[in-house]
């Protein structure tokens, strides 16, 4: 009975994490379309939410990586997964509160690794999977998006350079409906799968699924729904601050940035690499900006992303490990996770209330 309660707490926490992931990332997914006037905010956000939902159904490679290639499922328990989720949510909340750009995906993997190490030791971690499928792609993907977007916008300007600006601008704005849609689809497929992977890991750990099982349909559908709802509700909040958050760019740059971001995320997803979609999208935006004018890029934001990238995995791992240790004070039953979940809910409520008093942070935080 106790194990079942913990499992349901894990599932609820994972879906809450998925919701906040969508909530965080709406700005990244729709920003360029809104900035260039390709779509009205309400339309862009609704479209992104729908494609986030559909994207979650097109692949399970990333879910398999999270469930089977990062930590050893044989030694994992639902409480370890729960502590990892709390580590990720806490780090997301801290970075959101202080307006630091961070990756929900790295926080999730860091949290799970940290709690697994605290519970079982370093034997719980599959170093090959962590390094090869998470850390190295985490470095390569944003750089790749930067380069692809930079080359693509250079070619675009050469091809359409002598055309009338009106038709070019209009054409790329229409194109952004497509590229923005692809980016939302890519975001949905990579980010929702991390939640699917974590829930699947908990189901394997609890004995509900076999060690090699894929995510059941209800897991896929619930993760898709949570991220889509998060994207939709997050969007309404950012409409008011959109003007200050977005890098000004023309429609061709927006198309190149979104196309590059979508291409990198979809290709990586195919091979099961769980990326920070935020870092990839920002890489594409910076690439298309740098190709036109180096000073157009907010290099300070790039620096913040780099620092957050360095901090996220160890910080989320530390919180995940501490959370696991705290839950064990109350034994191996459901009491520890229930208390931690209640404390987390209280802290989230306090943080939201205080943030609301101070005003929304201007940040690029997300998946």
């Amino acid at each position, binding site marked *: 009975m106790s194990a079942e309660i913990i499992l349901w707490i894990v599932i609820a926490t994972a879906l809450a994490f998925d919701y906040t992931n969508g909530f965080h990332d709406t700005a990244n997914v729709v920003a360029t379309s809104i900035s260039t006037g390709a779509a009205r905010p309400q339309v862009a956000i609704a479209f992104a939410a729908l494609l986030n939902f559909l994207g979650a159904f097109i692949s399970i490679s990333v879910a398999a990586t999270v469930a089977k290639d990062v930590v050893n499922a044989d030694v994992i328990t639902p409480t370890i997964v729960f502590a990892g989720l709390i580590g990720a949510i806490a780090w997301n909340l801290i970075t959101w509160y202080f307006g630091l750009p961070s990756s929900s995906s790295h926080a999730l993997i860091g949290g799970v690794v940290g709690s697994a190490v605290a519970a079982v030791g370093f034997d719980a971690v599959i*170093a090959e999977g962590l390094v*090869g499928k998470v850390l190295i792609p985490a470095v390569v993907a944003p750089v790749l998006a930067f380069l692809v977007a930079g080359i693509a916008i250079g070619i675009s300007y050469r091809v359409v350079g002598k055309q009338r600006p009106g038709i070019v601008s209009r*054409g*790329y704005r229409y194109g952004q409906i497509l590229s923005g849609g692809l980016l939302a689809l890519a975001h949905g497929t990579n980010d929702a799968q991390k939640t699917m992977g974590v829930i699947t890991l908990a189901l394997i750990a609890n004995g509900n699924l076999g060690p090699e099982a894929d995510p059941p349909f209800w897991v896929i559908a619930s993760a898709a729904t949570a991220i889509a709802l998060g994207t939709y509700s997050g969007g309404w909040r950012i409409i008011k601050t959109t003007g200050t958050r977005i890098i000004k760019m023309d429609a061709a740059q927006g198309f190149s940035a979104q196309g590059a971001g979508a*291409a990198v995320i979809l290709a990586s997803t195919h*091979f099961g690499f769980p990326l920070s979609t935020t870092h990839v999208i920002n890489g594409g935006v910076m690439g298309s900006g740098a190709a036109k004018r180096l000073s157009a890029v907010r290099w300070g934001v790039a620096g913040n992303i780099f620092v957050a990238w360095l901090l996220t995995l160890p910080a989320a791992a530390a919180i995940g490990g501490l959370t696991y240790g705290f839950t064990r004070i109350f034994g191996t039953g459901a009491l520890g996770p229930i208390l931690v979940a209640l404390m987390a809910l209280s802290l989230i409520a306090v943080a939201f209330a205080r943030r609301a008093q101070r005003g929304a942070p201007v940040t690029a935080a997300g998946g």
Partner: protein
Amino acid sequence: MIATIVHTDELLQTVAAASVAGIGVTFAFSVGIWGAGQFAELSRSERPVLATAAALVAIFALACVAGAIGVGIIVMTDK
């Protein structure tokens, strides 16, 4: 050992696929816009044969964009 950890093949395929898709689709879409722009110009200057050719270029380029996206999604869902 390093190649095993790094997943070199998968990483290189990711780099190749993302580069071809990201740059290729943007190039094809730009050619589509160029074709549409030329079609408008040539139609205005009453050169119907060249205008038709430009329109065909635009249609072909946009068909390539649609095809590339379709193939990409099919490859994703097939795995």
